[in-house]
């Protein structure tokens, strides 16, 4: 990761992988990732993104079937959950924890919230698109960024602006 934010520690990590493509290598990679998740969820690292990973698991359980909202919502697919998990993995460790939710179209949402008019919501689509919208007082910012393994800088900047208010 190359981006830095003054409000966050530059310490970050990407997906834990191994150089090989064999089943054993994949297994080791998976174990490393699980280890990182457990570490992040521990108190030693604070709430941080680890708490959001736990919430994502809850969303997966609650929204796995259609009509989970009573209005005909689409289920949250495994593909969307995988993209959301990768997205969370890409954040710097000291990023403030978002709350995790889902939208009726089956997208996973991450919200950084200060007040009803100072908030950022990022939707993760199954295709790996990041649709975001932020209210910063009277100012509105919204758009779409692709996710290629790193958190797009505009989203990091918006998080900083929301949480530092």
């Amino acid at each position, binding site marked *: 990761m190359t981006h830095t934010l003054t409000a966050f520690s530059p310490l970050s990590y990407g997906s834990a992988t191994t150089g090989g493509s064999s089943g054993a290598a994949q297994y080791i990679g998976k174990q490393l990732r699980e280890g990182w998740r457990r570490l992040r969820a521990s108190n030693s690292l604070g709430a941080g993104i680890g708490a959001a990973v736990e919430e994502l698991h809850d969303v997966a359980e609650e929204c796995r079937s259609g009509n989970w909202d009573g209005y005909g919502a689409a289920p949250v697919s495994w593909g969307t959950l995988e993209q959301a998990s990768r997205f969370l993995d890409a954040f710097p460790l000291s990023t403030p924890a978002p709350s995790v*939710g889902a939208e009726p179209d089956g997208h996973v949402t991450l919200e950084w919230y200060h007040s009803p*008019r100072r908030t950022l*919501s990022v939707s993760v689509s199954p295709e790996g698109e990041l649709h*975001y919208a932020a*209210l910063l007082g009277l100012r509105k910012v919204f758009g*779409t960024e692709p996710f290629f393994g790193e958190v797009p800088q505009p989203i990091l900047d918006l998080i900083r602006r929301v949480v530092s208010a």
Partner: protein
Amino acid sequence: MTEHSEPDRVTDDEQLARYIVTGRWIRSDQTIRPDAFIPHPYPDLSVTRHKSLSEQELWRVGKGVADAAAKALHGRADVRASAVRRYTLEVEPDPVRGNPNHASIVGWPVEKPAQKIIAQQIVADCKFIRGLVPEA
């Protein structure tokens, strides 16, 4: 109004209810996440007009929404029609069986980010009313 009568226009001062059956849409400060106001199946968003309904009748409609999803009813997000129309949306009467006060918020932009920014502004004007959680 009956299900077979001509639906009347939704006036600006009417209150609209969006029922909430997932706790994930309720923030810790008892405000609502914009997730609750993303139209799906696109392009409409279902709401219920308060109109002449009593509180008890309003909750009965909400329980029907929750029952359809086999979930508990957490509450409802109330918003004025004028607050919705501020964002170039329209509220159209759309009576359905069992809910003659059903209405649809229409005119949503196609693009997801544009939907999200509108939803964020609408929920900023919403009032969350916690409902009685029906017995299982």
